[in-house]
């Protein structure tokens, strides 16, 4: 899933300076599961903001609403009425970077601010602990690297590792960071598949250097979107 972490409170407070009536929009999917921007986190942030602004003698009227997914028009449409009616002077989104942008795009006249920093595509290792696993590069090499991503897990993103900095199975950057290529070697050796990395992985063209558009086979861009 996409994981994010809440921005530091001071940064959020600074962004909302001068805005008196704000709607904080949570997202009920990825950021909710990773404890960053769901209904509960919206309520907590709003309480903090309310308190801080009162202390500064500059009260804020802050509302909260969490939609199922901010990356889907169908769910964002649920906000149309309240936004039209309440006339907020700013929006805050606690969705990932994708959701924040889609919210801002739907209500282009209202300043929209991020409440979280999106940190990546990660697995849930334990409650509250998420580890990045994918950089969505558009060209998956996991088939030859034993199911371990060298672009994400190797600090240098090497295609022909391990480099000379492998340190007792760990990366040169930290003893807490396993060396991706050490792991790749270990797994492929156990599977008897080292031959898959014996061949040089030649330089590839990066497919993530321009904004990517994905249209699945059998579909096409509609002429008009709602």
């Amino acid at each position, binding site marked *: 899933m996409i994981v994010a972490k809440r921005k530091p409170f001071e940064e959020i407070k600074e962004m909302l300076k001068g805005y008196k009536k704000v709607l904080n929009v949570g997202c009920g999917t990825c950021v909710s599961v990773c404890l960053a921007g769901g209904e509960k986190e919206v309520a907590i942030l709003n309480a903090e903001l309310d308190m801080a602004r009162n202390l500064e003698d500059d009260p804020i009227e802050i509302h909260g609403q969490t939609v199922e997914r901010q990356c889907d028009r169908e769910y964002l449409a649920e906000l149309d009425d309240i936004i039209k009616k309440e006339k907020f002077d700013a929006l805050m989104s606690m969705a990932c970077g994708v959701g924040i942008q889609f919210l801002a795009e739907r209500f282009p006249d209202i300043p929209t601010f991020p409440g979280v920093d999106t940190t990546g595509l990660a697995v849930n290792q334990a409650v509250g602990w998420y580890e990045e696993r994918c950089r969505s590069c558009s060209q998956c090499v996991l088939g030859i690297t034993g199911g371990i991503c060298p672009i994400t897990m190797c600090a240098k*993103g*090497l295609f*022909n590792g*391990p480099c*000379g900095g*492998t340190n007792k199975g760990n990366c*040169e950057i930290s003893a807490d960071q396993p060396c991706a290529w050490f792991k790749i070697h270990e797994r492929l050796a156990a599977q008897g598949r080292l031959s898959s990395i014996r061949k040089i992985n030649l330089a590839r063209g990066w497919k993530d250097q321009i904004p990517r558009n994905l249209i699945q086979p059998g579909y096409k861009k509609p002429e008009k979107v709602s």
Partner: protein
Amino acid sequence: MSIQGNNLKSGSNLEKILKSGQFAFTGELGPPRGTDVKEVIEKAQFLKGNVDSVNITDNQTAVVRMASWAASLLLVQEGLEPNYQMVCRDRNRLAMQADILGAYALGIRNMLCLSGDHCQFGDHPDAKGVFDIDSMQLIAMVKQMRDDAKFLGGAEIHHPPKIFIGAASNPFADPFDWRVQRLAKKIEAGVDFIQTQCIYNMEKFRKFIHIAGEEGLTEKVYILAGVTPFKSIGMAKYMKSKVPGMDVPDEVIKRLQGVEKGKVAQEGINMACEQIEEFKSMKGVHGVHLMAIEWEHKVPEIAAQAKVLPRPKPE
């Protein structure tokens, strides 16, 4: 050896010496953290005539220094032959190819292709590491530029750069049994010579070179054994505990600890010279790469004690 043919790939001094079967001896120089040309030239004087080629490091340990191509040119002007180091960390394939063309045009003939230390080690820890291509792919790219006269993108190069292609090998980093395979991959990518990581664990290195020999690799590439003399016990301990991928056995440190306080540096030099002596007759080793880190002024003394002087002067 099988790499011998009629034609030189680059015509560099280093290539000629290696090709003639003579034992090569290369040095290293770190560019300054400023614009002082004098500093480069002073260091270079200690290396001149004592080594066959001088590695010019490229923002080593991810710390900003004078560009390696610029310091390399200063050496060319001084009559020394540089071995221009290039890391994948700081530039993409466009910048790399442009720099290679420029370097060759101005007289640089040897290159060392490296991944580069991670930015986190250096003075700009939050810099974006480029790593558009890795060291293996860099070797293949330089070879393609030289032998096929083609850029990585496929377009033709007019007057291609005739570079003698080098790379590094660390026999001591994990996993040990993959290190020879990785060397084999670099050979397949097109490397001409290898300079190894600093060697302190001779037993492990003997094993590495033996396996490489058994696999026929030492017949396909020139291998220069990396030697860095210890200046102090502190340096040895630092290398052991702080430098990733470095293997410093306890007995090496014990030997340094066993001499009188004022004689540790000399003992470090003695140890390095003993290593060099062994490398001279070690099957599969074609030379030594001396990395006298911030100790360039000791190179004449070390070269003399190691009996590698005078250096050959190929036609």
